């Protein structure tokens, strides 16, 4: 396992390098001229050319890549084309809000999802199951903007309990994390239920019962641990997705996170920011998935990597 881990970790750098080439190429091949977009809607061609020179976009592609790579190696990703700030500042400023929100949302959603899923599985076919699954389906089928706006209307406008939007105190976290987490909770609930039903009839669960393990532990220890693999997979994926910043939630609640930054930078073809963000997201996913793989081996000792 140690060897495997070291190998995987050592493999991250070359993988990122390959990704960087890929991302660089892809981003530059997208239709859209950043110079023109950055220069603005009523900029003349002259303005556009000035901007183009300023951004170094008049250089051959490989020179641009070389510069990008050179910067990246020093942990610096150049300046945002749009705001002219260093990309690291631009992203750094938004990473923590996204991270915090992600963690809050993931924690409650995973717990709630597990609870609902387990309740549904153990009360399968009864009303608890149906209620649980309808809640779960709502979490997937309700567009989050809708939910977000409804909550703002209720909790901020009508009741005045929570601030409508923004970032700062714990009150600011309530609605965004609820909105963000609902989908996750739904996914978790569905997967937990399914994985659970699979395992609940295995012989070793019967053994646990025969030992006199209380029903609660039969569920939460003996069954869950074996049902963990799809659940871990999903937690990892959802965590990764949320870490990319949710565009809708950040928009509805004016959360200063990575999702909106991404939209903005895509709208302006702000290459430097896009590249840095995708590299960051890739790194996030690679690390999360590495952890997920490690957790697999923990969840199921028969899984071995070589």
């Amino acid at each position: 396992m140690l060897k495997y881990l070291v190998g995987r970790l050592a493999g991250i750098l070359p993988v990122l390098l390959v990704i960087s080439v890929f991302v660089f190429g892809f981003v530059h091949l997208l239709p859209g001229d950043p110079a023109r977009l950055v220069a603005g809607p009523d900029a003349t061609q002259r303005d556009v050319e000035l901007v183009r020179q300023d951004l170094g976009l008049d250089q051959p592609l490989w020179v641009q890549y070389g510069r990008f790579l050179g910067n990246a190696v020093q942990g610096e990703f150049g300046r945002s084309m749009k705001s002219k700030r260093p990309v690291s500042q631009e992203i750094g400023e938004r990473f923590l809000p996204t991270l915090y929100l992600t963690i809050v949302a993931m924690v409650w959603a995973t717990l709630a999802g597990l609870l609902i899923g387990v309740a549904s599985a153990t009360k399968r076919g009864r009303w608890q199951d149906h209620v649980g699954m309808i809640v779960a389906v709502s979490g997937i089928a309700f567009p989050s903007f809708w939910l977000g706006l409804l909550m703002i209307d209720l909790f901020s406008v009508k009741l005045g309990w929570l601030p409508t939007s923004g970032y700062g105190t714990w009150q600011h976290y309530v609605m965004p994390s609820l909105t963000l987490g609902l989908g996750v909770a739904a996914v978790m609930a569905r997967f937990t239920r399914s994985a659970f039903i699979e395992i609940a009839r295995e012989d070793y669960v019967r053994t646990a019962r025969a030992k006199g393990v209380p029903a609660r532990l039969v569920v939460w220890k003996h069954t869950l641990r074996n049902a963990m693999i799809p659940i871990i997979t999903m937690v990892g994926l959802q965590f990764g997705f949320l870490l990319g910043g949710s565009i809708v939630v950040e928009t509805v609640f004016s959360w200063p996170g990575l999702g909106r930054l991404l939209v903005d930078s895509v709208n302006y073809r702000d290459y430097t920011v896009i590249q840095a963000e995708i590299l960051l997201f890739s790194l996030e996913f690679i690390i999360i998935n590495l952890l997920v793989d490690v957790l697999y081996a923990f969840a199921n000792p028969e899984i071995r990597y070589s």
Partner: protein
Amino acid sequence: MSAVAAAKAADTAPALLSVEGLSVAFDGEHGPVRVVEDVSFSVAPGETVAIVGESGSGKSVTSLSLMRLVDYAGGRIVGGRIRFKGRDGRERDLASPPAEALTDMRGNDIAMVFQEPMTSLNPVFTIGDQIAEAVMLHQGLDRKAARAEALRMLEKVRIPEPARLLDRHPHQLSGGMRQRVMIAMALSCRPSLLIADEPTTALDVTIQAQILRLIRLLQDEMGMGVIFITHDMGVVAEVADRVVVMWRGRKVEEGPVERIFQAPQHPYTKALLSAVPKLGALRGQDLPVRFPLLVVDDAKADAALPAPPPVQDTVRAADAPLLEVRDLTTRFDVRKGIFGSLKARVHAVEKVSFAVRPGETLALVGESGCGKSTTGRTIMGLQSATSGTIRFDGLDTATLDSNGQAKLKEKIQYIFQDPFASLNPRMTVGFSIAEPMLVHDYVPTSKPGVSRRRAIEERVAELLTQVGLKPEHARRYPHEFSGGQRQRVCIARALACDPKLIIADEAVAALDVSIQAQIVNLLMELQARRGLSYLFISHDMAVVERVSHRVAVMYLGQIVELGPRRAVFESPQHPYTRRLMAAVPIADPSRRTRDLRLLTGEIPSPIRNVGDEPAVQPLVPVGDDHFVARHAVGGDF
């Protein structure tokens, strides 16, 4: 407590458990199917009741019903009462409350050893955790003390290096080791009633004797009632106070053990007893001989077949060996900690060499955990060998490409020790049996004008019938069978493609003696007809005596004795072999050996530190074709 005293106690003392008119049903394809009908019996404190009966007669279902675990397996108690007197002295009917309500009673009052230890251990928890959990639940110890107690229990069931075992996971254990873990777990609950469902099928006779002794000790200590389900009449004779005989879902006979053995009433009981293989039955015989067969048909027993069973003179000694194993070594790394640093190695198979000739049955016997299954798995290519060569039909299997490997598997079939786990739970057994034929484009011979699919279906039906099942069973899923039935399904699957060699890993261990005789005879008949060879891995020395031409005895990963059956059985050379022969229980309650001491002390273990290679002594001839390894290993009994 002596048998007589126990019987007396059963009369006077109020019953611990009394089952009255129990009926259990499963939902079948066409509505509910009753698999247990109106069964009644009782168990007094300190008493041992053995339930014997035909495979599939409802023994396991009955025992699951007592703990209401059958509810979780899709079954329902449709009639009867199960009156049980708990620790608190209160008597209640276990059949009526919802299954969930009985949680406090399980483990505490009734504990159970399941028939299939392979699937009954939770794969994600370590052995230590699983036993310690039971200890903590029922003996109120803290985590550390529970672990210590778990260790003690493992020592008691004679598992080598129990301290190391605590941190290992079930899949790293041999079949017999898992079974012992199950027993340790059940006993550590210290229940007032223990239900043991075939608890020793995967154990060699030496360890079996230990386990029986252990149960008896605890029983005497705590007045524990025991329900012992087994098909081994030797074990019944050894442990039981009373015997309940089941047949086709019903109780057909019940009585004190002596009465049952001396004067069986029901035809099935009679048949059963007469079919019991006895060690030494073939004394003086060079070649194996089939079992005399009994057919119990609708409660009427026929006598043995008129003609004496033919001898099995099938070995084509002149031909080149079919399977040749040379210096085979298989080791497992033992890793520890999250980073898995290499701590030690399990020397499961060490420099094993043997050959199987066409038409020959080579029996592989040995202590539980000595590497028999690993040898089989390595030959099948399911486990990569550390070193050594395996030749089949003259071809080195290591040199074959994947195509050749696949082809090879048409000729060699492997019957797993663990029938349930080796059947795909999502497939009907019919499909599982047909699969080898489909994979190898095998066309069964059949009447002309029959489509291939139809021919395969017919062949499946024929195979099922041959192993004593019914053609319509093909539509069922593995979990809908009893342990012995599943084992027969696996045998049917192995026979499907007319292989040349079958490696049978404890293939008849879960079968009652009458079915066992039928199956063994079937195998021998195929050998006579088609020249099949068998590598027959077994603990049951009486069966081994019947089927094998030659016997290899394994101990701690090495072959310590190898020779013709008669030579090995009649003049065992290696101390371990001798011990093995001596420990075989005898199916006669009057010849009990209850005073056997519990063994204590160090148990030799195949786990060695890295770099500490075991000494392998060459096999030296001691007789005609008879070899023995002369070294300290295994000598210190």
